């Protein structure tokens, strides 16, 4: 059986265009410019290392083969469609034949291959893996990343507009990787190793990209060589302001049209601008990651004691009532997610665990060190509340660290977040349970070999198999309640705050913005 997936672009584009034209007859503003404020300056803007705010401009500048729509469906972007082999090991992509870079050069299959081969080079990747986190299963990619090969055998150029991708292992839902902003394509034949190239990179999308590495400001302007459907917005300006209140004041004062709130002011904005919030969906979540190589959290009893001794529900209700508390690794929106699952607050159970630990009682337990990075207002506050509860319920001493260096192995717990780009339990759980998962190295947590084996078993099952979800839920439960690799905190609390005259703004599981479909109304 040959599974054929072909996505029709035209209907989406037609829908989008009809929406815009309906409005434009009424009252389109003369100046089609959007100004947006973000937190956090970008030090690197190439797609393969992107993990944060870059996703919204990548969607319209350096196009990935596909995009996601608001519901999480894949829609064509650089590629018109793909075919998947029955064993789900081969993906054949068809690129648009008229696609050209902003310098006029045609976007061929080999240009895409070369851009990706540059993107996975280890020096171009961030610590959590970047593009490699989704492309590591492509045949030969590991060698290219390490620099021992320049040609990934798994990327086969069939002809100018067809690229075959060969995986060395089946990954359910791997096609999601093709809709990730990290797979964005740019012209790699320029001097891409020079930071100055990235001030005005040669792009593949409807907007040219202009970056000032000193201020972090980014301006998108229309690409005269754009090969797709015409776009309405003339210019999109991003600026960086670290302080959330200053961002909001600039917005309230009418100086900018869109701001991103990362949850800092959610409670405030829910009251002051409830109708201007556009919630950003996501299957990611925030958590405290345990280190099981370090005393005393190498003792699973201690980890379990810490897990059950804090009343997360009460803490969030009191401190950040609008934030979506989560108890799970698999978030709603990912297959096999179990919304019923809850982690209990049970001080008695926690005390029992403590007494069963190798330390016997709290007196003998060395202090527990937690790294929350520099976010004192949010995580500092939450952890201070936990600190009190650990002290009250267990008598344990917990120390909190804000600004520090990258010496993460020195901490028992650290605040982190993850969002599976390949939206499938194999990926979402693999980060924690697989022996080659990101957590084993980055957060110093090695899950047990049994869990690794269980994961391997589940990964071989077909996506329709009912046993699959049972296995994944079992893994999730053991990861949380038995091995306790992490303490889940909240889902994505991000929101766009958008002026009403910004017409048609939508966001997706990629947390991006559909700039190509937006227009500004007279206001």
């Amino acid at each position, binding site marked *: 059986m040959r599974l054929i997936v072909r996505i029709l672009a035209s209907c989406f584009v037609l829908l989008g265009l009809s929406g815009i034209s309906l409005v434009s007859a009424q009252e389109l503003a003369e100046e089609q410019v959007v100004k947006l404020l973000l937190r956090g300056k970008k030090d690197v803007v190439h797609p393969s290392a992107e993990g944060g705010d870059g996703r919204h401009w990548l969607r319209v500048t350096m196009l990935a083969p596909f995009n996601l729509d608001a519901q999480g469906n894949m829609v064509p972007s650089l590629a018109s469609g793909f075919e998947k082999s029955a064993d789900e090991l081969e993906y054949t992509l068809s690129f648009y034949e008229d696609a050209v870079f902003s310098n006029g050069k045609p976007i061929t299959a080999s240009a895409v291959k070369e851009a990706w081969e540059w993107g996975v080079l280890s020096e171009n990747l961030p610590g959590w893996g970047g593009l490699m986190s989704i492309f590591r299963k492509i045949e030969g990619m590991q060698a290219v990343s390490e620099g021992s090969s320049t040609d990934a055998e798994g990327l086969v150029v069939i002809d100018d507009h067809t690229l075959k991708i060969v995986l060395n292992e089946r990954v359910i839902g791997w096609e999601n990787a093709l809709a990730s902003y990290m797979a964005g394509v740019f012209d790699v034949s320029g001097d891409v190793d020079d930071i100055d190239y990235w001030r005005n990179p040669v792009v593949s999308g409807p907007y040219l990209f202009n970056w000032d590495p000193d201020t972090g400001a980014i301006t998108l302007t229309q690409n005269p060589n754009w090969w797709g459907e015409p776009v309405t917005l003339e210019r999109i300006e991003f600026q960086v302001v670290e302080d*959330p*209140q200053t961002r909001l004041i600039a917005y309230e004062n009418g100086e900018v049209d869109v701001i991103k709130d990362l949850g800092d002011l959610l409670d405030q904005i829910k009251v002051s601008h409830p109708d201007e919030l556009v919630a950003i969906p996501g299957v990611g979540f925030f958590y405290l990651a345990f280190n099981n190589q370090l005393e005393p959290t190498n003792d699973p009893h201690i980890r379990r004691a810490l897990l059950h001794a804090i009343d997360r529900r009460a803490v969030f209700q009191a401190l950040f009532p609008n934030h979506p508390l989560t108890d799970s690794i698999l978030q709603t929106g990912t297959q096999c997610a179990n919304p019923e699952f809850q982690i209990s607050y049970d001080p008695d159970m926690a005390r029992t665990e403590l007494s069963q630990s190798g330390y016997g009682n709290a007196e003998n337990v060395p202090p527990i060190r937690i790294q929350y990075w520099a976010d004192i207002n949010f995580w500092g506050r939450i952890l*201070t509340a936990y600190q009190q509860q650990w002290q009250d319920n267990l008598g344990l001493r917990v120390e909190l660290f804000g600004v520090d260096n990258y010496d993460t192995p020195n901490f028992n717990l650290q605040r982190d977040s993850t969002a599976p780009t390949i939206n499938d339990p194999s990926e979402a759980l693999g980060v924690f349970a697989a022996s080659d998962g990101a957590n084993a190295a980055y957060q110093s947590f090695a899950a047990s070999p049994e869990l690794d084996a269980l994961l391997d078993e589940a990964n071989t099952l077909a996506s329709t198999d009912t046993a699959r979800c049972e296995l994944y839920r079992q893994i999730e439960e053991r990861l949380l309640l038995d091995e306790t690799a992490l303490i889940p905190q909240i889902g994505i609390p991000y929101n766009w705050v958008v002026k009403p005259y910004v017409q048609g703004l939508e966001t997706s599981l990629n947390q991006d913005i559909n700039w190509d479909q937006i227009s500004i109304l007279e206001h």
Partner: protein
Amino acid sequence: MKTQARSNNLWLDAFKRLVRNRMSMLALIIIVLIVLMAIFGPLLSPYDYTRQDLLNTNQGPSLEHWFGTDELGRDMFSRILWGARTALAVAFISQGISFGLGILLGSIAAYSGGWVDNAIMRFADILMSFPHLLLAIFVSATIRQPILKSFYGVYDRTGWDIFRNTVFIDYFIVFGALAAAGWPWAARLIRGQILSLREQDFVAAAQALGARHWQIIRAHLVPNAIGPIIVSFTAGFGDAMLAESSLSYLGIGIRPPGASWGAMISESLIGWRLHPHLVAVPGLVLAICVFAFNLFGDGLNDALNPRSKVR
């Protein structure tokens, strides 16, 4: 005997001048209140400054909580009292270390002269050319990690309970960083005082009469040099408090749940539009306190050095 009487008179005159200055008396009253607050406040306050009450967060001022409660439901008044302790401890100890080192090195330099003087003062010059707070930031950013690591090592080896507590390490690092930036100024001041006094007639006369070194120091140098030292010691208090709050704002000061006015401000900065009192109260107390110390420093200066009006 005669010099004793003379210096007694000087002190009395200075005291009278100080009392006559209404502004510095006001400042003194504030300072005494703050010191009393810092010493006795935490004992008398009805709440523990770290005690959280998640059901009563962000409350405005009330009879139960005079200054309201903070974002974790902790009593603001108790935290302000504890913050007074932190602020005074930081100011007093960092100034103490600065001046201790300064007096020691400054007088060694003045008395030895030659290459010792040269070496000490060159070193002081180098440190003084760093911007004050920048040096404190730099020192605390570089020494924090190694100090904490070696401290962990001590606990791992000894297993002694006192080494489990690393809270005072924070204070220690803040003191150290501020003192590292402060001592060269004290050293320069003291060296200058000693050198200029040595030139004075009565010291030369005493030397000619065969008085011993320490006699000269005790009888002449100490009473004469102590005025400017007290003035600049006090005047530095306000700056030290502000510097501590800045370090806390930058995340390299006192860590939670410790209470310092600077940390209280920066912990509440995100919600200042919803709960302005959480920023206003510690901000106001800090401002009053720094203002009082600066004012008192000025008054002391006027009283002790009636001719020079310059700090």
